[in-house]
């Protein structure tokens, strides 16, 4: 029986920016149904095409864009695209996922993947117009902000529906904390320095127009799954706060648990009241927005009507508020403006926030003096300094040139023990909340394949399961105990990582599918309906186990990439501060550290659950073969990197 193309576009597009060569290749449906899409495609091609000999800024590094398999269909909240490259911050696997319409445009133009290699001799942009692919001069765009670039492209191409990707000035200057932005400031491939890779290729933007249909195999099955999805989110208590506050909603939990991580991850308590979600909602938000196809409406754009930053209109999400607190700043307008600057300059808010906090602590402790900072004091809580340092990083000015390298590299340059203040994992700055007092939370930051990433590891499953479910799914009732549980946590983490990877294969938003108030709702959305949507769109018959396995497969490819770069168990670690210093605060985690013994025990169980060597964390041949990755097993065996 002939396989149907379903919702796939049907081709890969490869562009060599050094030679100008454009290649198109048919999509193999066996490949598609095995790797699914999004992260599955990107990670596989990165492994195959970027060996350890290639450095992140070498022309031979790849920059790969892969819309999620369901992007372009009306599957709810299926609107995310993956970007993959070897990362200039971690030196290992790097990727990002963004909202925005560009990914659907690429599919409508006829391509499920865009692979960029080489480097242009001078600034260019890529124009993809259905089957027409051109490399064009970007001299007039170089230096523009993200929004300026997006608007200039739409104007010059005379089409306001054209989708774009671009870098801002930060990416042009190969700031390691630079991001790639989608459709102006609609979405961002924020982390792992992807913007710097794009800048190293002299690629300012990709503009795309597509007019082709995206097919669907079984409309009735799609509509049925759609109704069931709407039904689940209508009863899940997770959803109303998301619609009401957007991602600002995470504040209340942070407050009660006392895990702000303020002032460079030292304080659990903080004067958070000026940043109350109610303040953003009533004084600044324009409306409850959606990413494409999403019924949850948790996206937010804000406008500052008066004061120092009057007229600022920008998109802002939770991590901006969190990183502002990391720098001791609690002015809501400063937070919005910080988001505005990072959005326009093309910077990773998490990376920049943590790196400025690092600099502030170095200044506080005398490791940076007024000469290093050109006379600019760097106290925590000073929002003017916060903005000025952001600008300096974007343009590599003064101290900004050092900080543009990220907190780890900057710390190594500064020396004098500065590394202990660089809050990073594998070279990528910390995200989300403080892990002290919550054992598996700590491990989850260490095991993500792209550095600290709560979205990849999703330990929050421990919060919503009952002890019975802990026993049933993870072998121990303890898995449901956030503060004291040990048994079952490693298995929970492994399962949870595979679960959310499904979202990245299909292009599903994690807030719409992978956060929930109960395990039943979570599995219904994230496993069952996700699989049914894929099958309805593509005429396939993947089981839920096969879909979870596809998630496990992509994760293992990334792990193999990192292992091949030399990373083993020693890199699955979190900053020393969390082990050594007690969290200062009054919440349940107040006074806690991350217990090293518990950390290691959970990590042992996690490696075991993954089928990796428990001591070294290296993958076992049998595991890779079970996942259909025999060629990767052979490659690692040749390099003596099997577990």
């Amino acid at each position, binding site marked *: 029986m002939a396989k149907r193309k379903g919702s796939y576009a049907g081709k890969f597009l490869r562009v060599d920016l050094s030679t100008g060569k454009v290649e198109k290749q048919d999509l193999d449906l066996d490949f598609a149904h095995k790797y699914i899409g999004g992260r599955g495609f990107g990670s596989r091609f990165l492994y195959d095409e970027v060996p350890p000999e290639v450095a992140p800024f070498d022309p031979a590094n790849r920059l790969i864009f892969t819309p999620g398999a369901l992007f372009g269909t009306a599957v709810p909240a299926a609107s995310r695209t993956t970007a993959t490259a070897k990362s200039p911050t971690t030196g290992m696997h790097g990727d990002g996922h963004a909202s925005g319409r560009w990914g659907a445009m690429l599919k409508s133009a006829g391509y499920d993947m865009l692979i960029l290699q080489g480097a242009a001799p001078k600034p260019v942009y890529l124009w993809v117009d259905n089957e027409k692919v051109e490399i064009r001069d970007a001299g007039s765009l170089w230096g523009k902000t993200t929004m300026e670039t997006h608007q200039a492209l739409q104007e010059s191409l005379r089409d306001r529906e054209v989708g774009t990707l671009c870098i801002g000035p930060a990416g042009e200057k190969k700031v390691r904390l630079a991001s790639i932005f989608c459709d*102006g400031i609609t979405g961002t491939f924020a982390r792992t320095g992807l913007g710097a890779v794009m800048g190293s290729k002299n690629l300012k933007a990709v503009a795309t127009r597509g007019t082709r*249909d995206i097919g669907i195999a079984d409309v009735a099955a799609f509509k049925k799954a759609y109704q069931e999805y709407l039904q689940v989110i209508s009863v899940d208590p997770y959803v109303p706060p998301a619609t009401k506050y957007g991602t600002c909603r995470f504040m209340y939990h942070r407050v009660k648990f006392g895990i702000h991580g303020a002032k460079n991850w030292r304080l659990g308590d903080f004067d958070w009241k000026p940043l109350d979600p109610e303040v953003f909602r009533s004084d600044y938000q324009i409306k409850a927005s959606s990413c494409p196809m999403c019924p949850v409406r948790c996206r937010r754009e804000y406008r500052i009507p008066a004061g120092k930053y009057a*007229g600022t209109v920008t998109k802002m999400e939770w991590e901006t508020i969190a990183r502002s607190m990391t720098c001791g700043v609690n002015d809501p307008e400063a937070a919005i403006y910080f988001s505005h600057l990072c959005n326009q300059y093309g910077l990773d808010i998490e990376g920049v926030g943590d790196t400025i906090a690092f600099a502030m602590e170095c200044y506080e402790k005398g490791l940076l003096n007024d000469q290093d900072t050109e006379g600019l004091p760097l106290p925590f809580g000073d929002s003017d300094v916060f903005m000025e340092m952001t600008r300096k990083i974007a343009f590599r000015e003064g101290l900004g040139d050092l900080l543009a390298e990220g907190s780890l590299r900057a710390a190594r340059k500064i020396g004098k023990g500065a590394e202990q203040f660089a809050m990073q994992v594998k070279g990528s700055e910390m995200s989300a909340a403080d892990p002290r007092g919550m054992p598996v939370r700590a491990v989850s930051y260490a095991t993500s394949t792209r550095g600290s990433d709560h979205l990849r590891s999703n330990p929050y499953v421990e919060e919503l399961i009952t002890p019975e479910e802990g026993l049933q799914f993870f072998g121990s009732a303890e898995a449901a105990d956030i503060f004291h549980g040990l048994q079952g946590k490693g298995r929970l983490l492994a399962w949870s990582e595979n679960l959310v990877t499904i979202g990245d294969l299909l292009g599903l938003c994690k807030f719409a599918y992978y956060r929930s108030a109960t395990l039943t709702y979570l599995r219904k959305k994230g496993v069952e309906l996700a699989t049914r949507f894929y099958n309805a769109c593509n005429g396939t018959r993947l089981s839920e186990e096969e879909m979870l396995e596809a998630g496990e497969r992509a994760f293992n490819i990334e792990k193999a990439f990192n292992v091949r770069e030399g990373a083993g168990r020693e890199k699955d670690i979190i900053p020393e501060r969390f082990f050594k210093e007690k969290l200062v605060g009054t919440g349940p985690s107040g006074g806690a550290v991350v217990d090293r013994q518990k950390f290691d025990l959970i990590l042992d169980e996690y490696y075991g659950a993954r089928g990796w060597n428990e001591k070294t964390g290296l993958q076992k041949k049998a595991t890779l073969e079970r996942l259909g990755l025999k060629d990767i097993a052979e490659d690692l065996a040749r390099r003596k990197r099997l577990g």
Partner: protein
Amino acid sequence: MPKTNAGSAGKTKGLRRRVLYVSLPDQADRICSGCETCQLMCSLQNTGAFNPKKSRIKVVPLSVGITIPVTCQQCEDPWCQRACPEKAIVPHKKMNLVAVDEKKCTGCMACIGACPYGIMVYDPEKKKALKCDLCGGDPACVQYCPSKVLVLADHPRSAEIRRQRFAAILANEEATARHNIAGAQQIKILPSTMTQLSIQDSKQPTEGRR
């Protein structure tokens, strides 16, 4: 008043209806969220595939955070019908509106140029004009809008109601002209219909606002 096909159809088939965007400004989630689900469900209903270029309803982004869905106003004396040189825009057999007869349409785009609302769509593959026909009476966009801001409304016969609607549109435009944004990015912002924003405006100091 000139004779048209549409006018005579109106008498026999009851009230004209159209899909309208209705927001409730005091409810932040009863405003178009910009999700564009309407576009994809429209193309799915009409073509069996997903393609926003073939959607008869279009979500128009006016600015960051301002998105307005627009579609055919089912005019009683349609400009598109008058402009068509092939008489390809004809009364619908069952409903009180006009529709494009694909067999007669030559893709000349006269109707697209004529429509004052800019809602005639050009199918890039078939190279013909497309127009909303209310999905036979149960519009897919209305059914699937997650924010429930699309309604199937009766075309008001009352001139007074239509006058008010038009005045409200002009009021929004006037408010736009009064906004002056400081800062490096000269992004024009139109106020949404949110009452919140107009309350904000009245609280602002007059200096630095022009």
